[in-house]
C-alpha cells in the first residue's frame, strides 16, 4: 500500500500551525508567530504556503480596543480535512499498516 505525505502539512512549522488551528475557531497571527518562536516573515511564509494550498483563510478585524487591524487565521474545510487525513496516516503508520522507506521530494512511502 502506498501512502503519500501531504507535503504542505508535513513541514514542522506548518504542521505546528495546523495542530494549533485544529481545535479552535481562529488564532491571531501574533499568537501563531509567538508559539512557533519565529519572526513575522517566517510565519508569513508558512502561512502563505497554507493559504495557496487552500488550507487556511485570513480574516482581518480591527482590534476592539486599539482599533488596529489584526489578522485571524482559521482552517478551511479542505485544510481541516487534509490535517485529519494526515493525522490518520501517521496513526496508521504507527499501527503498522505501512513502513517508511526513502523519503524524497515526492514523499512516497511503500508498505513492506
Amino acid at each position, binding site marked *: 500500500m502506498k501512502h503519500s505525505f501531504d507535503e504542505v502539512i*508535513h513541514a*514542522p512549522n506548518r*504542521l*505546528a500551525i*495546523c*495542530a*494549533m488551528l*485544529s*481545535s*479552535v*475557531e*481562529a*488564532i*491571531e497571527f*501574533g*499568537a*501563531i508567530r*509567538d*508559539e512557533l518562536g519565529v519572526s513575522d516573515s517566517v510565519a508569513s511564509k508558512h502561512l502563505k504556503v497554507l493559504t495557496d494550498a487552500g488550507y487556511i483563510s485570513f480574516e482581518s478585524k480591527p*482590534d*476592539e*480596543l486599539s482599533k488596529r487591524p489584526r489578522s*485571524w487565521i*482559521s482552517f478551511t474545510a479542505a485544510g481541516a480535512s487534509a490535517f485529519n487525513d494526515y*493525522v490518520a*496516516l*501517521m*496513526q496508521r*503508520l*504507527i499501527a*503498522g499498516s505501512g*513502513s*517508511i*522507506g*526513502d*523519503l524524497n521530494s515526492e514523499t512516497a512511502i511503500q508498505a513492506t
Partner: protein
Amino acid sequence: METSKNELPVEQLELITQYQSQVATRIHSYAFGYILLGLLWAAPIAALAAGFGWGGFALLATAMATGLWSVRVTRKTGVRLTSIDRGSKTATYGAWILFIWVLSASAAALSIPLTGTPLIPLVAAGVSAVVTALMGIRIDRELVRATQSGEDA
C-alpha cells in the same frame, strides 16, 4: 535514508500534541479568575439587598465589565474558540451557572418585599458566586482538555 518504522510518525504526532497543548495553555485561566467572575456576577444579587435600583445598576455594571473582560481575554490569548456543542459538558456547566444565577436573583428579588431583610439576597449571592466559580473552573478544564486533544468543546 532509512528511517525506523515508527520514528517519523511518532515525532509528528508528538509535535501535534505539543502545539495543541500550547494553545490549551493560552486559553487556560487560573481558579482565582473564576472566583472573581463568581463574585462579579453575584454583585447584582447582593445589591438587591440595598434595593431594586441598586440591583439594576449593579447588573448593568456587571454586564459591561463582563463584556470588557471577555474582549480582553480574547485579545490576550489570541485564540477564538469554536462554538460550544449543546450536548457537551461545557454547555451543561454553563447552563448550571445560568440556572443558579436566575434562581438566586429571583429568590433575592422576591424576598425583599416579603421579608425586608438583606439576609436572603446576600445568601443567594453567595450561592451564585460559589456555583459560578466552581462551574467556571470545570468549564476551563473541559476547554483545555478538548483543545489539547483537538476535539470540539
